[in-house]
């Protein structure tokens, strides 16, 4: 890219002067600028912005890029491509998240337990073998019409 080296991201800022310079580079206030903790993961001096998705940004404000809800020069979140409006949404929900999780887990576990019990202890309506009329279909099964068919009773008294 054609940006000069001072404007590109660099290593983790150690002194307050480096911090101020990094904040100015990223167009942020020095108080707002907070780099990722220096644990060797490769973030460098990139600012750690709040993990809010683009759904939460004002839809009525005239952004420079209205679909991305982003202004020219505004620092982008590290996971900007995850927080776009087609993807992850962190906007507040009408019901608290822990309540939703609890309800979902209760329903899911109830259904799974019932299905499991049904597999282990299946229960059906009682059935018997099918009963055919006309002496067990004697003529249809090729019995001799001249002979007396054997009498078949399907009941016991």
């Amino acid at each position, binding site marked *: 890219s054609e940006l000069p080296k001072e404007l590109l991201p660099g290593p*983790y800022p150690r002194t307050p002067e480096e911090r101020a310079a990094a904040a100015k580079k*990223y167009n942020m206030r020095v108080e707002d600028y907070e780099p990722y903790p220096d644990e060797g993961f490769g973030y460098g001096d990139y600012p750690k912005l709040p993990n809010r998705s683009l759904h939460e940004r004002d839809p009525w404000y005239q952004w420079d890029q209205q679909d991305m809800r982003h202004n020219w020069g505004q620092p982008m979140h590290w996971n900007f491509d995850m927080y776009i409006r087609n993807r992850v949404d962190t906007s*507040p929900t009408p019901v608290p998240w822990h309540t939703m999780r609890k309800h979902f887990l209760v329903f899911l576990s109830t259904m799974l337990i019932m299905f499991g019990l049904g597999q282990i202890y299946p229960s059906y309506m009682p059935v018997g073998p099918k009963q055919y009329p006309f002496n067990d279909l004697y003529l249809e099964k090729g019995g001799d019409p001249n002979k007396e068919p054997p009498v078949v009773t399907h009941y016991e008294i």
Partner: protein
Amino acid sequence: MASGPPPTAAEAYRPNKYVSLPAELDPDTYDASPEKRRAEAERLAIRARLKRQYQLQLNNPNPPAIIEDPALLRWAYARTQNIYPNFRPTPKTSFLGALFAIGPLLFWIGVFKAERDHKEKLIQEGKYKRPFSMF
């Protein structure tokens, strides 16, 4: 016995990394102290300066072919070319690297080998049916 004051609406909501607190429940919304206003004014000044730069380029009678966004360039650079210079092997990064890079490899090697050995054992004992058919 009393169990303390009831939780505030913001505490009852319990925002986490999947949902954020609504602005109406956040005490910061109702804080109109001069420090907050000065901070907002400074942020507005930065925003206005950037807007002006952008609008000047946009409405230029000889506009450049592309108006580059330095924030976008910095974002792309940080995520691609700035990772290796700032990477440092620490206990945490070594552990995570082993877990996510070498772990699955060894795991699937083990799984495939075990499955193949099991099948080979069945074939040697003659218990594996191998129909000579494509389907």
